[in-house]
């Protein structure tokens, strides 16, 4: 029971979405494409994060359905795509499927961050398995969204507390023997990190709590993301196919 002093009670940088306060930082730029079928939402996001001078985010294109999205992304080659899960024409997963070569590009990969109003397990797990580097709900604040975008740009993963919860659920210890020991199990450390994310800790706080560096936290989360995308655990596949998302 430590006694909190005035100095470190930095209320205000409230972050429900977990990412540490990396922020854009001065001079950093990221090119973003918005894919969402609700024009109002696109306008809102544009207004919130598109002030390039302040945020460092430059919105280079928008799309309202799958075909448009693939066209725009191929034409503009953004660094990060904000992708709505539910889209006319096959949903976000279809966009991910058709943009797979761009994602795998060694020179300048296009990375995806999924956004949705839904927080149903099958949606979340579905887009992550489709290749998205993170998942946030649309209630996220502008600041947090900018942070998440930069995080994804760097190749890190963005886990919301809810996503962490799903992952813990999916990798819960079962009696079923793992098919692939490397992919079907979370290490103790990864589990601890996920637990803290689910409890609403930012990466910086997790690092403090576990006496490791923020970089290490990030690499644990990235490892979990990889397992999430490659493991064939029954729960994951079940969730992902629940709405024929994969």
């Amino acid at each position, binding site marked *: 029971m430590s006694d909190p002093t005035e100095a*470190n009670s930095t*209320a205000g940088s409230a972050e429900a979405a977990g990412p540490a306060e990396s922020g854009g930082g001065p001079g950093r730029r990221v090119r973003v494409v918005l894919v969402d079928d609700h024009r109002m939402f696109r306008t809102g996001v544009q207004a919130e994060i598109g002030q390039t001078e302040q945020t460092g985010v430059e919105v280079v294109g928008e799309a309202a359905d799958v075909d448009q999205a693939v066209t725009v992304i191929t034409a503009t080659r953004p660094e990060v795509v904000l992708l709505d899960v539910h889209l006319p024409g096959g949903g976000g997963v279809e966009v991910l499927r058709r943009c797979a070569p761009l994602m795998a590009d060694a020179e300048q990969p296009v990375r995806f961050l999924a956004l949705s109003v839904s927080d*149903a397990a099958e949606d979340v797990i579905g887009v992550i398995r489709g290749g998205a580097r993170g998942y946030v709900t649309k209630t996220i604040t502008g600041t947090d969204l900018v942070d998440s975008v930069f995080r994804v740009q760097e190749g890190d993963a963005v886990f919301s507390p809810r996503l*962490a919860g799903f992952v813990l*659920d999916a990798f*819960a210890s079962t009696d079923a023997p793992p098919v692939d020991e490397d992919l079907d199990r979370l290490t103790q450390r990864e589990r601890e990190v996920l637990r803290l994310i689910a409890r609403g800790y930012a990466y910086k706080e997790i690092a403090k709590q576990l006496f490791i560096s923020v970089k290490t936290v990030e690499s644990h989360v990235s490892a979990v993301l990889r397992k999430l995308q490659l493991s064939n655990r029954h729960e994951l596949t079940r969730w992902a196919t629940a709405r024929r998302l994969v």
Partner: protein
Amino acid sequence: MSEAAAAPLAEPRPPRKLYRSSDGRWLGGVARGLAGHLGLPVIWVRLVFVGLFMADGLGALLYAAFWFFVPLGVGGVEAQKPPSLVSSETSPDGRRRLVARRPDKGQMVALLLMVVVAMVFVGNVNLSGAARAYLWPTVLVGAGVALVWRQADNARRARWVEVGRRRRTVTLLRSVGGVLLVTAGVSGIFVLQGSAAHLGSVLQAALAVLVGITLLAGPYLVRMTQDLSEERLMRIRAQERAEVAAHVHDSVLHTLTLIQRNAENANEVRRLARAQERDLRTWLYKPEGTGKDEADEPTTLADAVRRNAAEVEDKHGVPIEVVVVGDCPLDERIAAQMQAAREAMVNAAKYGGEGGAVQVYAEVEGKTVFVSVRDRGPGFDLDSIPADRMGVRESIIGRMERNGGTARLRAVPDGGTEVELEMERAEKTS
């Protein structure tokens, strides 16, 4: 007899209609349904039927008549809870699932009993030799009819209850068995009547008639069933649409109106929107019959946590994010933990709400249930609270310890307070 008082019930029941009971029946559910209707114990009704059966088989006729005319329904006796179409139970992992009925053990017993009673009856009854000879074929016919009818009941029932997919062959075998029994019985009667010589031609004639009827009425019947199922589908769709419309109308439009009225009160608008969003999500994404009714008490941990968070959120206007991993049924200890958790949520909302959303995390791991409630407020120190403020000390720490759990409060380095509650589940592992 019909004046018998029904079992007293907590809530007034709608006027009862006579149904055959689809649960716990032996044969056709007639006795059960009657018993439920008359408010008598089932065994009495069954005995009465057996007694009547002794009286020249009147019971069997009566039973058959009931079976034929009374629709299959739900309920019957044991109406402590309002009859629900589906019996469900909470499995250890906290999921509610439908319970498929056990294989019809009761039916076997019933059939055996019938046979015994029939034997006794045959032994006792003083029929002339001629009539007596007809008895066995008649019994055969009866048994066959019972089998087929029973199968029809099962088919109806399966529409209400997702019974674990029985192998189709069993169904088919039963029906075929029933038909064979009836055929054998009827043939027996023919043979006894001495028209055995004509049996062949009679059968042929019967077959010809059957084929004719099938040819004439077949297409019509097929079309009728198709029309019926289509109509049913339309009706279900219409009902669904009406339900959606009603819900949207009742709650969503209402909320939107309130939001417009309170446009200048940001907190109230936020609260209204959150509450409506939660409500709509529950309504859209939750499977049928789980927590849709505000009235029913939560029975699992996840339900209880969400329910508490929702209530606190509504009351204090601070968003509460809930993440639950795993689930388990509630027992007394966990219920106490829920109360402590609720208290922690209230504190977090009251004193730490200005720092943003309160984060609640609950996890079931084996026998341990862990709940953490975290806010990003100014933080507080347990020692600096005056001794007369019993909130935290009593309703969180005290409550947990009395029930054999632990509670820890700590200040988070970067601001805010975290309450961690840990509790072992009660021994009884369901």
